[in-house]
């Protein structure tokens, strides 16, 4: 063993506590030049904390960091950047209001005080050419798609001549095609001798891209393995600490009547833009209707309109055939529509109120919780809450504590307890497993399937294609507020096909592409034009006019 090259990074015995909880407990981690070293673990296992220590954002309570064999102490991110560490955070760390080139040079000392814009733009173009990371340096970041923003974040690290790149859950927000091009970029950087830390909890991706894999669980390192020769099942078991089964749910055999329908719905978003552009769909009882799409394509606005939280510009929502107009959320609730919103601590629950109060929030005016016209019967409420907490397995020190003290999984269980306990006829669930660990995710999925089998119409909005393909009986894809297509047979579609639809490729082009590639023709029901159809043309035309569009509609 002569003259071994020292690793680019060597983190030794890193410990970091938050309010007494050990988020990292004596973790060793190293990255060699020209390798992809994956950090695998569930949410809350301590992956991001470890990387925030590496990039100088957190000060470790114990342990040391060596860069190319040299002991370093990072007091601020500046030190880490100077040592060649480039972090691509999960939330990218970009200033949305500023342009790409401005984001690129923020905080760079090597530049003159008056910024040489032309030189910067040229340099960005050089690097983006070399790594095939296409972006417009003059575009403001908020106008870019999520995939483009990620390219900017990677470029930013390369612009700073980072030798070690940390990619924190880079695939969570990408469509399959974008993931492939990200992997190509990662392989190129690896080939040039960069060290890459890849963070993820998606096992297929991890196996596809890694050289070595380190597994974290509850703040501790379980071990480090070569990617060759490990199986998905083995990794999952080490990550979760028990055996996990990868099985999709059996699809429903019989679908019930239409319960909730949306007709030519046009809804405005927060910024006054038209977020939902003439959507029509029907939710039937005894089915899970999935909606795939990249975040911010109108899903949220559509769901809010479907439960009465957001008024519509035109079109209508019908519950059991009855037009709801712009009825209040309570009117929807009274007709049996439950809502599981994306932000549990905002729209869903009130963080400063206790469990009891949060549970009765959706029905305190009704018997038996109402006592007379003005009061609430807290004893009845407590009894009811106690039963729910037990039935749904919410772990809590007491019913009187503010719910902000609960973990994400327990919050979601509480949400489900409140929304599902009255046997709703329709459930609108937005990203119900987002940010949950494997156990809680399994639990939530089981509850949704249970509700479907009981006869409820479930509308499931998710960015997790795996989840949608596993649970949905029917699946629609939304892009820029328009339905790109609806299929009765989601499992026949590949993730790539869905990715193209999510990126805005028309259904015709996707089908043509399949033929050209010589893929197997889509099976049975998909060929039937009645079951896989593009969104309603007339409604889209109307939305186009409402937006001020003139002449021929581009998609007609």
């Amino acid at each position: 063993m002569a003259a071994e090259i020292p690793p680019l990074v060597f983190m030794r015995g890193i410990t970091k506590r938050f309010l007494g909880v050990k988020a990292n407990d004596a973790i060793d981690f190293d990255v060699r030049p020209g390798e992809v070293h994956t950090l695998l673990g569930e949410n809350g296992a301590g992956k991001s904390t470890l990387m925030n220590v590496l990039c100088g954002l957190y000060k470790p309570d114990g342990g040391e960091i060596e860069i190319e064999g040299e002991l370093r102490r990072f007091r601020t991110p500046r030190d880490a950047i100077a040592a060649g560490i480039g972090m691509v955070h999960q939330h990218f760390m970009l200033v949305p209001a500023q342009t790409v080139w401005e984001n690129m040079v923020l905080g760079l000392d090597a530049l003159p005080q008056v910024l040489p814009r032309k030189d910067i733009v040229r340099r960005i173009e050089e690097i983006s050419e070399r790594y095939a990371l296409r972006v417009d340096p003059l575009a403001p970041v908020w106008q870019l798609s999520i995939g483009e923003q990620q390219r900017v974040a990677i470029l930013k690290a390369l612009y700073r001549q980072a030798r070690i790149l940390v990619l924190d859950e880079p695939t969570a927000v990408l469509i399959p095609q974008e993931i492939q091009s990200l992997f190509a970029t990662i392989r190129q950087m690896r080939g040039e001798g960069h060290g890459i830390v890849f963070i993820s909890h998606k096992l297929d991706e991890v196996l596809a891209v890694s050289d070595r894999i380190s597994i974290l669980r509850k703040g501790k390192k379980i071990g480090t393995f070569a990617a060759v020769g490990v199986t998905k099942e083995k990794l999952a078991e080490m990550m979760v600490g028990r055996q996990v089964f990868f099985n999709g749910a059996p699809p429903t055999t019989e679908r019930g009547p239409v319960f909730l329908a949306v007709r030519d719905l046009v809804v405005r978003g927060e910024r006054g833009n038209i977020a939902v552009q003439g959507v029509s769909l029907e939710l039937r009882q005894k089915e899970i209707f999935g909606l795939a799409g990249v975040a911010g394509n109108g899903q949220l606005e559509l769901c809010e309109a479907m439960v009465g939280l957001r008024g519509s510009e035109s079109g209508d929502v019908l519950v059991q055939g009855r037009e709801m107009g712009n009825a209040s959320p309570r009117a929807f609730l009274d007709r049996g529509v439950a809502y599981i919103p994306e932000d549990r601590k905002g729209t869903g629950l009130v963080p400063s109120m206790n469990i009891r109060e949060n549970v009765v929030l959706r029905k305190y005016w009704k018997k038996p919780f109402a006592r007379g016209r003005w009061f609430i019967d807290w004893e009845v409420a407590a009894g009811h809450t106690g039963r729910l907490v037990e039935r749904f397995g919410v772990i809590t020190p007491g019913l009187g504590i503010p719910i902000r003290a609960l973990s994400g999984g327990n919050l979601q269980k509480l949400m489900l307890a409140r929304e599902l306990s009255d046997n709703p006829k329709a459930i609108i669930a937005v990203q119900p497993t987002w940010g949950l660990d494997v156990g809680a995710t399994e639990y939530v999925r089981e509850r949704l399937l249970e509700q479907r089998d009981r006869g409820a119409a479930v509308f499931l909005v998710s960015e997790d294609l795996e989840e949608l393909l596993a649970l949905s009986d029917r699946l629609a894809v939304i892009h820029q507020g328009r339905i790109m297509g609806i299929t009765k047979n989601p499992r026949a579609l590949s993730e790539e096909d869905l990715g193209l639809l999510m990126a805005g490729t028309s259904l015709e082009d996707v089908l043509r592409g399949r033929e050209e590639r010589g893929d197997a023709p889509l099976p049975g029901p998909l060929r039937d034009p009645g079951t896989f159809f593009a969104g309603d043309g007339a409604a889209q035309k109307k939305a186009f006019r409402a937006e001020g569009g003139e002449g021929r509609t581009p998609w007609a």
Partner: protein
Amino acid sequence: MEMLVPILAAAVRSGTPILYATLGEILTERSGILNLGLEGLMLVGAFTGFSVASGTGNAWLGIAAAFLSGCLLALVHAFLCITGRANQVVSGLALTMFGTGLSSLLGRGFIGETILGIGGMTIPLLSEIPVLGPTFFDQDPLVYLSYGLAVFLTWFLWSTRAGLALRAVGDAPRVVDAMGLSSTRLRYLYTVIGGGIVAVGGAYMSVVYTKMWGDLMTAGRGWIAVALVIFAIWHPLRAVGGAYLFGGVGALQLRIQAAGTSIPAPLLLMLPYVFTIFVLFVISVRKGKGILLGAPASLGQPYHREERD
């Protein structure tokens, strides 16, 4: 046209204190700190400027002292809001009350006194341009300084490295920290300098405009400036137009009174404030187009680097 010139010139002059206050607050708010203490800062600036000018006989020294007094008071706000992560609205309101009371208390002995102050300075050639000349270039040095300041701040914000960091910290302090700068240091810096500039606006009232000290002499101009920052969408050059618009409403109101009308004087005096409410109303109705993009995204929100979000 000839008749209009005195009104336009008066609009610029009475708009100048508002302009300083607005520019100072734009600087502060661009860093993400909301300072509602403008009225207090202006009053303290007006008093400090006047008393130092009166004591030393040097009006420029008065302006400099006013700047420092504003910095000092804004430092209190910065400490409470950045280090103490206090509610910025409450801290700002407290600052207004404190500044109002302090200037009233200390200023009692100066009531009725007058100083030479800073006189006019006509700029040759430029002042001979018809209408524009007498409006903009037959003024005093501090008016010219305010033009320079607005242009400088615009250049600073969009052309320099430091300006880039300032805009970034108001939008995304976490990003700024991740990029190796200190959000805390930047916020302190611009809150303090911004406060100084606001106080110069107050000093302009006492040292240049009226050349005397009067209790509560800023009469709500600080609040107008708070509204103007929104009106200007946090842009220094748009603040110039806005400040003169408000200055013009004030100047016009005086002319109408002087011309003698049947409209009661208190109603006319209300004009600038009614106009402020009107402008804010129009902006909030039109909200969603440019406004949301101009506002620093993290304005008013306390931030701590190691807090998990």
